[in-house]
């Protein structure tokens, strides 16, 4: 079971051949690669999962406010909607939205998070997996294991495209996080390796071309809401794949497409704070309110 992370298909084929979950294979391979025991790798991932869980809990409480004062409190609004049984979409879906925004708001408020794969997209994977634990009664152990499957997807994307908004736009951050989360959800729901592949492909296709245009260069507007949208994309992709719906374009080809789209994306749309929403009249006004008129651009953030 020697494998690299060059293609997703190679990983899925190994899981089919061994007739086991992708996460177990990744755990063993990583233990070998890092020259330590599978248990110690699992324990370290458990720590990441615990940090994620704490970020969700803190973010759902009232009173969260970002360092700039621009954002905060929206996850709590969603939580109140659920608590009052006024939500439209059901506990699983609205719960996932609330959790994604909770973590993203904690990030903006200088709280502790796990970059997954980045700080800007840090709400998507925790929201997906913790929602599966809480709404579908999946064990914590399985949830932690699913992070290995998500990581494997992230590594394949990192090898063939990229994971930073500055290089590939938001598709590389929230898009990749959505694909990683979709893979984790499918595994937790008992899906096959094939279904994981299709879920990843569908998730990436749905965010292809998404630009990184943070207002005033800060990881807040639109990043926090894109975490909600990112986890919704993950559930859409997982639900479709679990129903047996296939992606016509294989996952590995969608990753290459993402790379090509990122390369042809204009610099103003890659985390420079110069294009998209950052360049709107309101986006510019917010920049001036925060940082004055000095300098035409809001700077970059990763």
């Amino acid at each position, binding site marked *: 079971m020697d494998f690299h992370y060059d293609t997703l298909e190679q990983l899925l084929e190994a899981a089919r051949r061994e007739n086991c979950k992708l996460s177990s294979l990744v755990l063993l391979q*990583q233990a070998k690669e890092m020259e330590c025991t599978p248990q110690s790798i699992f324990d370290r991932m458990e720590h990441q999962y615990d940090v994620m869980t704490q970020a969700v809990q803190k973010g759902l409480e009232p009173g969260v406010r970002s*360092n700039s004062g621009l954002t905060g409190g929206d996850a709590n609004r969603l939580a109140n909607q659920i608590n009052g049984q006024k939500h439209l979409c059901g506990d699983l879906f609205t719960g996932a939205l609330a959790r994604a925004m909770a973590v993203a708001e904690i990030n*903006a408020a200088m709280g*502790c998070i796990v970059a*997954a794969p980045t700080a800007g997209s840090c709400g998507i994977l925790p929201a997906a997996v913790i929602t599966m634990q809480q709404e579908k009664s999946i064990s914590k152990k399985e949830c932690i294991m699913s992070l290995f499957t998500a990581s494997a997807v992230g590594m394949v994307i990192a090898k063939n495209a990229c994971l930073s908004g500055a290089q590939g736009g938001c598709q590389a951050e929230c898009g990749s996080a959505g694909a990683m989360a979709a893979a984790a959800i499918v595994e937790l729901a008992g899906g096959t390796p094939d279904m994981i592949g299709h879920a990843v492909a569908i998730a990436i296709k749905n965010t292809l071309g998404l630009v990184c245009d943070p207002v005033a260069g800060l990881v807040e507007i639109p990043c926090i809401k894109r975490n909600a949208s990112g986890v919704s994309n993950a559930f859409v992709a997982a639900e479709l794949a679990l129903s047996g719906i296939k992606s016509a374009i294989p996952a590995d080809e969608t990753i290459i497409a993402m790379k090509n789209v990122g390369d042809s994306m204009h610099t103003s749309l890659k985390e420079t704070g110069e294009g998209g929403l950052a360049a709107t009249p309101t986006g510019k006004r917010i920049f001036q309110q925060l940082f004055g008129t000095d300098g035409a651009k809001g700077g970059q953030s990763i």
Partner: protein
Amino acid sequence: MNVFDIVGPVMIGPSSSHTAGAVRIGYVTGLLLGKPAVKAEIHLHGSFAKTYKGHGTDKALIAGILGMMPDDERIRNSPLLAEEAGLAVTIIPDSIPGAHPNTARIILTSAEGGQVSVQGSSIGGGNIVINQINGLPVEFSGQSDTLIILHRDIAGVIAEVSQYLGERGINISNFRLSRSEKGGIAIMTIEVDGKVEPFMNEHISGMPNILRSIALRLH
């Protein structure tokens, strides 16, 4: 690359480059001073200068100077903690010609009057590169064990250090020397494959003509 590069690092938000990387630059500077700082002059360049308030870059740098790492929950309260520790901080939005957009130059002074100046850039994902120490060009990331050694520019000093490491099975993966003038103060930066144990650094610190040696690992 491993799974914890993808699901990780655990860090204080909001930005791996503007917050986590900034903590690391401050940390290296504090370590190089070697004693509690009483004065910090922080020059910010590029995106750091423009967005530091929104990203908490100032808080992150101060936290690092105080010895915190990127996952420390106290980072957001670091200005208050600095005040309590008797550290006076000045933040100066500046322009450093030719520097990476996310660059800080920090000048720290200790109660005894010792001083160190460090310039570092945050290059993405929380990774940093230190570009200058006391005005001398250097280049290291702290991703592997690194020795930073200030020494007198005298024949045999480098050989003695490298021989000591070699005898203990420590392989040097990268070496760089920088000096102000012939016979003046020089800085060796030595990145190695294995682990530099504290006793090794202490031994090197005690060698003749070594002014200061620190062992660093950020990841």
